[in-house]
C-alpha cells in the first residue's frame, strides 16, 4: 500500500509541476463552463416560455434539462482529454529508461500500475470537483435535486476511471505518447458507439453490444438511476484495463 502511494505521489507531483495537468484542466473547465452557460441560457428561455402554461411549467426540471445533457457533454470532453493525461504514464518511463529504476526497486508491477492509475484518478477527481462550482449557482438561484447530480458525478468518475485504465493499457504498449493517445482515443470512441451496431444485430449480439457500450450505462446514471449493473460494468472495465496493462509489462520482460 505504501509503495502504491509512493508511485502515486510522484506521479501527481509530476502532473502538477509540469503544465500538463493545468493545460488539460483549464481547457476542460472552459469547455464545461461554456456548455453549462449555453444550457442554462437555453433553460432560462425555455422556462420563461413554459411559465405561460401551468402544465408545461410543471415539466421544467433543471436536473433533466441542464444536468443530464451537461453530464453527457462532460463525458465527451473526458473522452477527448483523458487520453492526454494517460498517454505518458508508462510510455515515457520506457522511453526515458526510468522504467529500469522502477522495475529494479522493491516495488511490484501491480503497485506501479495502481500508483499511476490512482494519480490519474486524482487529477480526474480534481477536475470534476472544480466543476462543482457551477452547481453553487444552480443551488443559489434554483432548486435542483442533489441526488441525481451526485449520481451523475459518480457516473463520470467511474467512467473516467475506466477511460484511464484503457489509457494506461495503451501507454504500456508503446514508447510513443502520441501513438498511445491515438489508440486510447480510438478504443474509447469505439466502445462509446459500439451499441450503434446493435441496431443491425439481433438476439444475444444485440444485448452484448448494448452492454459493452459506455454510452448505454452512462445514460442511466445521468438520469439519476443507480444500478449495480452499471457500477459493475465500469469497475470491471477498469479492472480489465489494469489487468491487460500488467500482462503487457510482464510479457515484455519475459520476452
Amino acid at each position: 500500500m505504501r509503495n502504491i502511494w509512493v508511485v502515486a505521489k510522484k506521479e501527481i507531483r509530476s502532473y502538477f509541476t509540469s503544465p500538463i495537468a493545468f493545460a488539460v484542466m483549464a481547457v476542460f473547465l472552459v469547455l464545461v463552463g461554456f456548455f453549462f452557460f449555453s444550457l442554462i441560457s437555453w433553460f432560462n428561455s425555455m422556462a420563461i416560455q413554459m411559465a405561460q402554461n401551468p402544465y408545461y411549467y410543471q415539466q421544467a426540471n433543471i436536473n433533466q434539462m441542464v444536468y443530464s445533457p451537461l453530464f453527457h457533454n462532460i463525458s465527451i470532453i473526458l473522452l477527448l482529454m483523458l487520453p492526454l493525461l494517460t498517454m505518458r504514464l508508462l510510455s515515457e518511463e520506457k522511453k526515458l529508461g526510468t522504467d529500469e529504476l522502477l522495475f529494479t526497486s522493491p516495488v511490484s508491477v501491480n503497485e506501479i500500475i495502481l500508483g499511476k492509475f490512482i494519480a490519474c484518478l486524482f487529477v480526474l477527481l480534481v477536475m470534476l470537483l472544480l466543476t462543482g462550482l457551477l452547481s453553487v449557482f444552480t443551488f443559489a438561484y434554483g432548486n435542483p435535486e442533489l441526488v441525481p447530480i451526485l449520481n451523475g458525478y459518480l457516473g463520470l468518475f467511474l467512467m473516467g476511471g475506466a477511460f484511464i485504465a484503457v489509457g494506461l493499457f495503451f501507454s504500456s504498449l508503446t514508447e510513443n505518447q502520441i501513438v498511445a493517445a491515438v489508440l486510447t482515443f480510438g478504443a474509447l470512441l469505439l466502445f462509446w458507439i459500439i451499441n450503434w451496431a446493435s441496431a443491425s444485430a439481433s438476439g444475444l449480439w444485440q444485448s452484448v453490444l448494448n452492454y459493452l457500450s459506455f454510452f448505454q450505462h452512462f445514460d442511466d446514471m445521468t438520469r439519476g438511476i443507480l444500478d449495480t449493473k452499471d457500477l459493475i460494468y465500469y469497475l470491471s472495465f477498469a479492472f480489465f484495463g489494469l489487468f491487460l496493462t500488467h500482462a503487457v509489462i510482464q510479457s515484455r520482460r519475459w520476452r
Partner: protein
Amino acid sequence: MIEVDHLTKKYGDLVAVKDLTFEVAKGKIWGLLGPNAAGKTTTMRILTGYLPATDGRAKVAGFDVFEQANEVKKVIGYLPEVLPLYSEMTVAAYLNFVAELKQVPASKKKAAVDRAIKVAGLEPVEKRLIKNISRGFKQRVGIAQALIHDPQVLILDEPTIGLDPAQIVEIRSLIKSLKGEHTIILSTHILAEVTQVCDGVVIINEGRLMASGSLEELSSTFQSKDGLVLKLKRVDEAYQELRRLPGIDKVSRRNGELVVEWSPGKDLREEVARFVLEKGLGLVEMRSLAMSLEELYLRIVSGGTPQ
C-alpha cells in the same frame, strides 16, 4: 556475494548471454569487460531483476535473483546505462522519491538523502531541476540514487561514460571509496578504468565468458614469456651483449627500450641486472615485462577461446 551460475539469456533467436559463470567476493570491485554488444548490460539487467534469464541461476547476497527478486532488489543499487532521471524534478526531490521507492524507513529518509548528496558531491545542485544540470552532475545523481538505500551490492553500468577527464577521475575515486562496504560490479570498455579501480575482471565476448580472475591471475595465465624491459644509454651494445647471456630466449627493441624475455618458470632478473651493471651499459630504468591490460584484453577477446 554475487554468484552467477551458467546464466543464459536469449532474445528470440539471438543469444545475448550464453552459459556465463563467475563469482564476486564480498567487498571487492569487479569489472565486467567486453566489446559493445558483448552482453554486459544484459548480465547486469538479469542480476538486478529487470530481466529474467532464459536459463541458469544467479544469487546476490545469498538471495536467488529469480525466486527472491524482491529481497535482491532491496540489497542492490543499480546505475543503468541510460540514467533513470526525471528531468522535471529537482535533485533533492528525485532522491527523496528514490529513497521512498527503495523503502528507506521514513525516519531515516532525510539522513539517507543527505548522505547520498554528500557522497556524490551534489550539494551545489541539490535544489536545481535535473534537466538544468550538467552531464557530469546527472551522472552523479545516477550514482547517488544507486547508493541511497546503502545497498550491499552496487551494479554500475558504464559509470564514467560521457564525462570529461576530470569528472572521470572524480567518479573513479568515488567508486574506489565505496569499496569494502559495498561489493561492486561495473561494466566498462575503458581498460584503464579496470586497472585503476577494479580488483578483478570478467571478460565477456558475444555473451560468453572469455576469462575471469584478478588482474595478476589473468596476466600470468595469458603471458607466455617472463622478462624485463630495460632503458639503457648504450642500447646497441647492450642489444648484442644481452643475447649472449645464457637462458635468454629473445632480446628485442621496442620504442628505444630493450625487451629481454625468457621462458616462464625461470627467474633471470638478478642475472640480467648484474650483467648490465658489470658491463657498464648505462642503466637508466628497469621494469618487469608485464602484459598490459590492453594486450591481455585484445588477446583474450580476439584470439582466446571461451572458458
